[in-house]
């Protein structure tokens, strides 16, 4: 089989092999000028051709169900199949979003319980499940901060502080919500440079966005001081929940002084990443932001679960999507939370941290350089391969690509930007010691190769469906849609 085939290459004009297709309906009453006369480029294949094509494509993917995925900041842990089953029941799948609440008590109860559990584990006062991913949660959070300041007559506050090491969504979200971004520096130990922060904070400060553990993979020890500093200046604290896995059940963001946060349920609550989503990014807030929560929220009234909307929450920042966010993902997250329970949640943080510290130590013993050797690892840790780059000319990207040949997904590379040639490594709690040892073994092997046979790394990967891909060409000679061979030359502009 030609592995280069697209579904369009398999397609043949006038092949009608579907068993899925209703008869054609009449369109005769629709005026012709509303109808299309060109045929779209959609495949004409038989069902087994489609199944083979997509089954074969699936074999070309790494995935948690096949590989260790120590992708820092992404929390690629096991995605329980039971949660998938729970959400895939006909009663949930076939539920129209506008069904009346009377025949929606099942799903509403699920959402209500999830709100309660998330409120609890974050130590906040209320939760809205509306945002559809972490970044949308951030946006909801900053819009609430904005609404809060406006309600306080402080609409002039126009700056959001983010550490230089922050995830890209943080500054991007600040911009999207109409704020300016002020960066604060990170110190040599990975904690925020408090002196610099003092200079940045001011009356223009609307808030600060932080993760804790931070994107430097260490616990921000000055969090209480930072909280005081920003609050004293009239700003609010936003917690980026991407790293919640590290502290789940141990400490709550609410107790660190945060006013608002999002959770990435597709990280901490194990919903599958789907090759790029869907996720869910619920927001949790403390009392002063409750009036601004995005709608809808599930409430209880007359012994019945109900949607609370703009009637109940008149100062809400509004809806974030057409309906109620990614409900199917929320059901998965609830399923997972129910299976974990309170004991299980504490175990998440403990074993994620144990795994990260063990792996960090073993890598250090194997000669790799930790970015913050004097710090404890959290659920993840940073190593820098700058020595290897300097000595052997092998960059972090080469290590990343070669690692694929060991059936291990590359860790997050070159993030955060302030650590050169870095790997951000997050093993998660669901990986076994044997798997971690296999990772150390692969890393050590690569280190040997760097000395003895650097081409093994520079030309990696060797055993994947493709050799290293030319990203520069991809961006220069844009080829974004398939064209019949005849048209192909014409399109390339």
């Amino acid at each position, binding site marked *: 089989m030609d592995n280069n085939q697209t579904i369009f290459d398999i397609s043949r004009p006038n092949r009608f092999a579907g068993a899925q297709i209703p008869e054609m309906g009449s369109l005769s009453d629709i005026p012709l000028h509303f109808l299309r006369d060109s045929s779209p480029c959609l495949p004409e294949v038989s069902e087994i051709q489609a199944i083979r094509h997509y089954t074969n494509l699936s*074999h070309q993917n790494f995935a948690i169900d096949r590989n260790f995925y120590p992708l820092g900041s992404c929390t690629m842990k096991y995605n329980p199949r039971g949660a998938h089953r*729970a959400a895939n029941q006909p*009663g949930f799948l076939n539920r129209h979003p506008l069904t009346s609440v009377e025949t929606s008590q099942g799903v509403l109860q699920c959402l209500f319980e999830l709100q309660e559990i998330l409120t609890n584990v974050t130590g906040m006062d209320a939760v809205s499940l509306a945002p559809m991913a972490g970044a949308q949660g951030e946006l909801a959070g900053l819009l609430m901060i904005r609404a809060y300041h406006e309600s306080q007559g402080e609409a002039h506050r126009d700056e959001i502080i983010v550490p230089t090491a922050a995830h*890209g969504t943080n500054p991007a979200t600040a911009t999207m919500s109409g*704020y300016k971004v002020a960066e604060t520096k990170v110190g040599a130990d990975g904690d925020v440079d408090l002196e610099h922060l003092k200079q940045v904070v001011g009356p223009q400060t609307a808030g600060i966005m932080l993760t804790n553990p931070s994107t430097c993979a260490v616990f921000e020890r000055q969090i209480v001081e930072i909280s005081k500093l920003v609050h004293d200046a009239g700003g609010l604290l936003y917690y980026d929940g991407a790293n919640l896995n590290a502290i789940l059940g141990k400490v709550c963001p609410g107790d660190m002084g945060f006013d608002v946060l999002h959770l990435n349920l597709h990280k901490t609550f194990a919903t599958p990443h789907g090759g790029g989503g*869907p996720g869910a990014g619920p927001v949790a807030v403390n009392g002063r932001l409750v009036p601004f929560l995005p709608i809808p929220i599930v409430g209880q009234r007359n012994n019945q679960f109900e949607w609370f909307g703009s009637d109940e929450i008149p100062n809400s920042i509004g809806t974030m999507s057409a*309906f109620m966010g990614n409900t199917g993902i929320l059901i998965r997250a609830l399923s997972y939370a129910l299976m974990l329970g309170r004991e299980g949640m504490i175990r998440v943080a403990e074993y994620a941290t144990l795994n990260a510290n063990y792996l960090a130590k073993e890598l250090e013993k194997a000669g790799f350089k930790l970015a913050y050797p004097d710090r404890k690892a959290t659920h993840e840790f940073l190593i820098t391969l700058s020595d290897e780059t300097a000595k052997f000319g092998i960059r972090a990207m080469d290590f990343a690509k070669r690692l694929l040949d060991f059936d291990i*997904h590359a860790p997050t590379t070159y993030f955060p930007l302030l650590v050169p040639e870095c790997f951000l490594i997050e093993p998660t709690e669901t990986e076994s010691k044997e798997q971690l040892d296999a990772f150390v073994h692969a890393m050590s092997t690569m280190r040997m190769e760097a000395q003895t046979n650097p081409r093994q790394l520079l030309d990696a990967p060797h055993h994947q469906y493709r050799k290293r891909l030319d990203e520069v060409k991809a961006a220069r000679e844009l*080829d974004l849609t398939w064209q019949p061979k005849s048209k192909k030359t014409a399109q390339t502009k």
Partner: protein
Amino acid sequence: MPFIPHTRDDVSAMLQSIGVSNVEELFSEIPSSIDRADLSAVPRGVTEMEMLRVLSERAKKDEVGPCFIGAGSYDHHIPAAVWDLASRGEFLTPYTPYQAEASQGTLQVLYEFQTMMSSLTAMDVANASVYDGGSGLAEAILMAVRCNRRNQSKKILICGAVNPFYIQAANTLVRGQGIELVQGDLSNGTYAIDLSEGEEVCAVVVQQPNFFGLLEDVDEICDWARTKNAMVVAVVNPMTLAVLKPPGEWGAEGADICSGDGQPLGVPMSSGGPSFGFLCTKLQHVRQLPGRIVGRTTDRAGSLGYTLTLQAREQHIRRAKATSNICTNQGLLVTAATIYMSIVGLRGLGNVASTCHSNTKYLVDKLCKSGLVKKTFVEPFFHECALDLSCDAQIVCDMLLRQEKILAGYALGRSFPEFQSSLLICATERRTQAEMDRFSETLLNACMSLARGQ
């Protein structure tokens, strides 16, 4: 321990290697001044068996009869193969395909998706999803503001009956940047250009078919917008584009940006999410597209392969200057939609679209023939139609649900106080004649009994 593979021996060995005596020590950098979490209100863990029992009881509770609601979420048939494939671990559980060499499967699927969507909409390029139709409209508007060099206005004209749920969400999402959405008049159910002379708008948003199921005169709107130096944002239901004129061919020059929700393409309704939003545009605007884009390129051996491209638009590179903050999007649903379009294929999608139309037409004709109800707006409609019941439509809905477990339609009064007696109905290809006949009968009975004051 659920999901955690460590044996006691493992834990001892690991602690020893680290050089600590217990796990608690690993958390020693957390200041002691911070209270330890108290999860006592979180229930105790249960087995998968227990959890599934509880959740299946709840799912059962929510099962209802045939669905005649549309209003942005549609009860289509999804071939069994679609989710059998999309649920394979290799599609369900990977991360975003940043490591291209280990993600050719997902990347090729996205490339095929971009091709299908570009072609369906007759636009040059498509991204690989935004969250949904509502946030998609927001991204389209933000993009229009970035793209429109001829016009510095931050006003966006919403032309007539654009999905009100989309407008609400877009409002939340764009307001922060000082963008204002101005609504056209709705009285006749289609667009109405009431822009006072001289006032500038950055873009015009028009939906086809519109929220009431009606076909807008999109050619005219497009051409008019050009004269105002406004960009045209088209909102479409991709399923209908199997037969309707695509946005790229509207008017003389086509729409500039096209957004919508992909739910009709193989995504279950699932209470409204997860679904996916899509954005298509002309090649000249590609650098303003938010979200991920896959490009075809070659590998070092010269073989064709796929990779994420134009990443300089995105937050992880461009940070505060990115085209959007979007990161995780709706990849899995895009995979399902791509497989759906492959399995129903060119002819299949056309048949779905035409049957949705003819079913709705059958139902509407039947209901109107009774003389008890009439169309709220004038034709032509596609696969949704507002009917004036001459009584409170919400009450009728409640009656049908309680009596017959039928989801009767969307009572327009919930979004438009002026249409309290109108019901927006939709009959997809899944609705049988028997269901439509039963629906028609019970609906008319309900209207009559309400008219008689019961």
